[in-house]
């Protein structure tokens, strides 16, 4: 695996913008992973917060407190700590959602491309129907309606899995179409016939012979999709149908911060917003490079 990373590094080094983006992205991911050690306090632990610290502006301003670099919110939580923990949630939701859509879409695409017949017709029709709606609206519909149908006491505890699954479901057709197309090409090749002649069943051939050969495009789409998933999660959370304020993501922080904007506390919304934009730009830039590396044909 290490041998295969070098071309990617060379790709990144070829463009200074992408190199900076990759570095920043690595920093953000590291900050998110190390949040419990980097953050001043745990914003989920209400006992560690002091209301006397609330509504403080960033440390570089006149009334700022040197303990809180980016200021505090109405609960007295350190905005920097909130961002670090929020980054964790945003990244986790994004990665899990993409994993779900990649798995669903790959299975659907393999089955429909390789087995064909009525299964193919059904899978592709369902995908077509889903394509009618923009993915973000679909995620909002799935997430919002599921939440609406749940009893009140379950809503908060199930909110996170609901967002992840809603985002995952909203994007599987993209993977299904891609994989199906690749499988249709692969299944004509001799190695597939050889595997069948060697006595492998259809399912085994599909999983052990065809799947490894269609992994590259799946990986490319997954990288590009992470930005979509993170952005959609932030949007859903901003609308109030995503990650709840008890365990806020960047989008949730922006939503709660937006409420304080008109009383002049701009730092509660600005810094999480800035982090989100930097994260998305970096993911997009690195994603473009990964695509160029794995799939030169797709280069625009």
């Amino acid at each position, binding site marked *: 695996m290490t041998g295969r990373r070098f071309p990617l590094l060379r790709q990144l080094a070829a463009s200074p913008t992408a190199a900076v983006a990759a570095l920043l992205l690595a920093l953000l991911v590291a900050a998110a992973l190390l949040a419990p050690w980097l953050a001043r306090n745990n914003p989920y632990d209400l006992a560690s917060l002091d209301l006397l610290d609330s509504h403080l502006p960033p440390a570089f301003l006149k009334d700022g407190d040197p303990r809180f670099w980016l200021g505090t919110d109405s609960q007295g939580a350190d905005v920097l700590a909130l961002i670090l923990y929020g980054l964790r949630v945003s990244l986790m939701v994004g990665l899990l959602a993409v994993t779900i859509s990649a798995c669903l879409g790959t299975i659907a695409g393999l089955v429909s491309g390789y087995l064909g017949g009525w299964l193919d017709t059904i899978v592709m029709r369902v995908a077509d129907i889903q394509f009618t709606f923009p993915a973000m609206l679909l995620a909002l519909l799935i997430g919002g309606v599921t939440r609406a149908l749940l009893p009140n006491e379950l809503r908060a505890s199930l909110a996170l899995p609901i967002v992840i699954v809603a985002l995952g479901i909203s994007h599987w057709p993209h993977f299904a179409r891609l994989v199906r197309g690749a499988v249709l090409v692969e299944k004509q090749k001799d190695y597939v016939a050889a595997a069948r002649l060697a006595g492998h069943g259809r399912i085994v051939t599909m999983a052990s012979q065809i799947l490894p050969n269609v992994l590259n495009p799946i990986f490319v789409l997954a990288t590009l999709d992470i930005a979509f998933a993170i952005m959609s999660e932030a949007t859903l959370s901003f609308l109030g149908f995503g990650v709840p304020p008890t365990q806020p993501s960047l989008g949730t922080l*922006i939503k709660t911060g937006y409420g304080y904007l008109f009383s002049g506390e701009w730092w509660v919304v600005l810094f999480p917003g800035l982090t989100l934009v930097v994260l998305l730009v970096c993911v997009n830039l690195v994603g473009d490079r990964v695509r160029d590396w794995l799939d030169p044909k797709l280069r625009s």
Partner: protein
Amino acid sequence: MIAFLLNRILHAALVMFVISVLAFVLGDVIGDPVASILGLEAAPADRAALRLRLHLDEPVLVRYGYYVGRFLHGDLGSSYGFQRPIVDLLAERIPATMELALAALALSLAVGVPLGVLAAAHRRSRIMGALMSFSVIGVSLPSFLVGILLIVVFSLWLGWLPSFGRGETVKIGFWTTGYLTASGLKSLVMPALSLAIGQIALVARLSRAEMLGVLQTDYIKFARARGLSDRAVNFSHALRNTLIPIITVSGIQLGYLVAFAIVVEQVFQWPGMGLLFLQALAQTDLPLISAFLLVAGLFFVTINLIVDLLYAAADPRLRIKTLAGRG
């Protein structure tokens, strides 16, 4: 061509069927239409009478038939939350959303197309290269953040533009428009801009890519050889042939703009469909959610159908392909 047409229309009908079944299950099977009309404190006798009148005790299939029949007659039931017929609510809200989406579409085409054409015409220029790499930022900016940023600058700091609402509107028939008053136009600027930013970047990228393809063709070389000016070649000869894909994409775009209008409406408290839908979700207003599903489904199915047909009309190869497929 006719086979292609039939295929698309059948597909649209299938999609509408699936959506209507989902909406029916949501509004009529899970939700309780009696409670939505009479309220929760109605007398049992009234409820029974209404159940009879609405055919609620009949088999599900028959009820689905009545549901579709009511929809075709323009009766979408009543909302729990607002205690009003849903059709009236939608009629009030649809103009606001459509005006917002159309303004954003116009903005994204008016800025994005010339930007893409210039970027393609001057593809070796450093400034254009830098501008195009900035488009990745445009694509990465969530529309709600753009909205918040605009509010901070133009409402809180400068105080030039209102931070919420639609301003004054004028009623023309059933359509309320904000395009005709000064305050309506002022209120439109920031929501339309935040909705359009990501699309401007997309349109610019697309028209640049299309232009680059067209600029390679022979007729452009001939036009240059005839001594026509750069401007005439770029904007009248080349642009004309890049417009077809751009038009089809803007159809799909209108769909996205209407979907993302939900977000922008939340930021600016714009009284459109999106805000209504969010309220419905927050209040578990099942009849309203199910009606929204139907109306949004109809809207997107229609847009997709029109785009498919436009595409077929614009691209003769598609016609030949379907002819070959038939024979």
